[in-house]
């Protein structure tokens, strides 16, 4: 086998340099901003439908009280708190409070079950647990006997719990009350606790959604986070002004929103707007019209399909106007991709298209003021990136992982390459191993997995983090991902197949949400497909295909044919052995609560293989019989 190894690659973009930061821990950054910005708005969240704003100074007071409240209950530096809540203001308060008092903050997905919460609390050794409301509290109460180390549970929203008489459960307001008393008794508490932390101390724990086995707690230090932050101003935010509105809605337990939604927002002096709940993201987006919007590809696709469906139901004139304007936008986008400038007539036509049509579309989706549009955590279709470009929104792609504190590569503004994840950020060294795996070295690489020294040793070898992603680098220093290392399939014929490459192509179809290719030790490849319910239902309705519930939609022969055609389209781009010969649709509507999905709504390969074993066998016996 030929070696796939590359030399060490760093950023080649001028200006992408590591910034010297005047702080070395996360809470020091926050308290510095509180000093500087005082009465400016730090965050907003709706109360009974009306946005309520909190200034930096107010948040400072609240965070101080919560932190002191924890200390009054015996919280010591280095101890861990867990937060079990949807993305909301209190989540950020609890995180900053725990860290300000020298503690470590761990997030638990609000969709996790009681037993998963139990595992995460026990493994992290959490001494306090913050929960959002009665629903999340019930999870703890179910497993409390097995969590003796949890001293108190603090509830953000006490609605429906006023009658609850449990000495172990208190409301957030009661904790702040305790905090106020503590602060009076020990005025120097905050300074003393802030001084107790050094860069090598643990700041947060992020549990990675293990596709096999139990989740692993990634230990991320203050130094890791500060290193990741030191790379953002010059690279991700190249030439962009400080401040501006943000919308936070992805889970804060995930490294991406924790960094970009919380810590980078603090660094950039932005205003964080929390969505009301996961269902109101698009309405809130329209209200806020943020300057920075980070989302996963699913969300970007959703915005596109909302516009597509609206246009379909609009009048003939609007449809023509939209088609014309998008055409003008696409031409400008093509020229930009080719590095050429449009002529004066073209510029005039584009100006007309912008003024008459495109700006309305941008306002309608809530992206009219967006300066930084960022996607990550999963591959995105080049067509989708072009559609946003036609709207005048350069959608940039970032690549990183929990173990790298979210840092890694990003596409430079105005210099992206289709299909590429961009160049290494400042301070990050990348190289490709002999097996084709991308390795990373840098101050953002995490401190290891909690309680799992062997796993840590497998992941960080000689100072290089094994990312598990297989990829390549081109002559300009741009990286491309082809697959996950452990997902590579070896067929019965001995052929190595990279399934994600094929899956990602299929996922670019609007009718497919996710797919899993199967074929390890098999004669040929097959796949299980999860359809995009909205788009397929709309498609079926437009063509008078009869269906009632989700299962009957999946069973409609026309839908099977549609997906079959999409699969054939993708097959054409692959060699014969890499083509899919059989497929089945997953007939159950899966939600974030289901174990088959990761919190970022991706299918878990190994679990799908187990759970749908019968369906998989069926594909192979059916083919054999045919």
């Amino acid at each position, binding site marked *: 086998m030929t070696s796939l190894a590359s030399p060490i690659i760093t950023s080649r973009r001028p200006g992408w340099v590591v910034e010297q930061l005047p702080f070395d821990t996360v809470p020091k950054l926050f308290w510095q901003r509180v000093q500087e910005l005082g009465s400016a708005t730090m965050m907003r969240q709706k109360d009974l439908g009306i946005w309520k704003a909190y200034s930096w100074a107010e948040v400072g007071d609240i965070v101080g009280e919560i932190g002191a409240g924890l200390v009054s209950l015996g919280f010591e530096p280095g101890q861990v708190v867990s937060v079990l809540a949807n993305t909301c203001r209190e989540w950020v308060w609890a995180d900053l409070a725990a860290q300000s008092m020298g503690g470590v903050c761990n997030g638990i997905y609000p969709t996790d079950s009681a037993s998963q919460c139990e595992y995460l609390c026990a493994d992290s050794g959490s001494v306090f647990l913050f929960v959002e409301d*009665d*629903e999340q509290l019930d999870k703890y109460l179910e497993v409390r006997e097995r969590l003796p180390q949890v001293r108190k549970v603090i509830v953000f929203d006490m609605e429906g719990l006023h009658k609850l008489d449990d000495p172990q459960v208190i409301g957030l307001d009661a904790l702040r009350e305790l905090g106020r008393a503590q602060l009076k008794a020990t005025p120097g508490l905050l300074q003393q606790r802030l001084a107790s932390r050094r860069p090598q101390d643990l700041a947060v724990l992020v549990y990675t959604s293990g596709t096999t086995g139990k989740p692993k707690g990634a230990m991320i230090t203050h130094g890791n986070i500060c290193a990741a932050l030191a790379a953002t101003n010059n690279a991700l935010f190249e030439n962009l002004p400080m401040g501006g509105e943000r919308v936070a809605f992805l889970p804060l337990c995930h490294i991406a929103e924790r960094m970009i939604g919380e810590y980078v927002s603090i660094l950039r002096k932005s205003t964080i707007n929390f969505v009301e709940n996961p269902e109101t993201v698009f309405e809130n987006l329209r209200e806020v019209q943020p300057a920075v919007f980070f989302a996963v590809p699913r969300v970007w696709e959703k915005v596109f399909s909302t516009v597509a469906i609206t246009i379909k139901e609009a009048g003939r004139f609007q449809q023509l106007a939209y088609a014309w304007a998008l055409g003008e936008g696409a031409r400008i986008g093509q020229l930009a991709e080719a590095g050429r400038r449009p002529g004066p007539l073209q510029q005039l036509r584009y100006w007309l298209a912008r003024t008459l049509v495109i700006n309305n579309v941008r306002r309608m989706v809530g992206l009219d003021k967006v300066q930084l549009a960022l996607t990550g955590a999963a591959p995105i279709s080049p067509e989708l990136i072009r559609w946003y470009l036609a709207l005048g929104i350069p959608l940039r792609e970032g690549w990183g992982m929990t173990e790298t504190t979210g840092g890694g590569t990003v596409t430079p503004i105005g210099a992206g390459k289709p299909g590429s994840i961009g160049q290494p950020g400042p301070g990050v060294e990348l190289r490709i191993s002999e097996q084709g795996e991308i390795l990373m070295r840098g101050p953002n690489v995490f401190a290891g997995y909690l309680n799992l020294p062997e796993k840590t040793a497998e992941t960080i070898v000689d100072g290089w983090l094994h990312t598990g992603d297989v990829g390549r680098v081109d002559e300009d220093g741009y990286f491309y991902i082809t697959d996950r290392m452990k997902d590579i399939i070896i067929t019965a014929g001995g052929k190595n197949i990279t399934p994600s490459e094929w899956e990602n192509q299929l996922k670019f179809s609007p009718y497919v949400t996710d797919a899993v290719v199967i074929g390890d030790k098999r004669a040929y490849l097959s796949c299980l497909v999860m359809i995009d319910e909205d788009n397929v239902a709309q498609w079926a309705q437009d063509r*008078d295909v*009869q*269906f*009632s519930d989700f299962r009957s939609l999946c069973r409609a022969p026309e839908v099977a044919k549609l997906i079959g055609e999409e699969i054939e389209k993708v097959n054409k781009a692959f060699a014969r052995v890499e083509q899919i010969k059989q497929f089945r649709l997953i007939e159950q*509507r899966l939600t974030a609560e289901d174990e088959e999905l990761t919190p970022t709504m991706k299918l878990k390969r190994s679990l799908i293989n187990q759970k749908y074993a019968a369906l998989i066998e069926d594909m192979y016996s059916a083919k054999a019989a045919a």
Partner: protein
Amino acid sequence: MSAGNDKDVLLALANVESSYGPIKAIRGVSLKVRQGEIATVLGSNGAGKSTILKTISGVLDPTRGTVMFKGEAITALDPAEIVKRGLAHVPEGREVFPLLSVKDNLLMGAYTRSDRDGVARDIEQVFGYFPILRERQAQDAGLLSGGQQQMLAISRALMAQPELILLDEPSLGLSPKLTKEIFEIVVRINRERGTTILLVEQNANMALNAADYGYVLENGRIVMEDACEVLREKEDIREFYLGMKETGVRGERRWKKKKTWR
């Protein structure tokens, strides 16, 4: 789609969409009602249940899709024509003629018929089902109680000798006892006369016990369908339609689970 022989299908809706002005009330509804069964459509307020019935009986014309009755398209036909073909609609809120006597109301139901003997026989039969109507036959219908008006509305529909009755919320505004009585008679009508019934209800418990096959409608779309004995055991139906939920460790629970419809 639901299993079963297509020959038995009395009523079939395919991809029906109906709107009130710019507001789409039902979006792509496909359902089947088989000969001799009681089918039910469950759904909350505003789900589009009544709109389905209005679209079937021709009161509302669909913007899309077809309605087939006895193998023939009746989409957007005149309501009177649809009644003549054997399909009667008992509207939500009874809608009896308040200033006509009970007997005249029944005769209004037989408006499309010309066999006077048959009509007289059928009046006797409905008086058999609802003896109170015989007592009150000369009274103005507006003076009847809600339950009696519901009985009258059902009887009026029977007077057209329909093969299929569309029954819209018979339990509306009635006491639990009366609701039970009405449902018993609905089942009796189905068993004795062989009349097929499409029942729309908010009272899921009653409807699931009376009906054979059920559809669940949410926001104008069917999200679940199955035989009623299967539906009764589904977790989402139990929690959201039958109000049976585990109270958890605290002994009370006010938060709602997410619907998954499986």
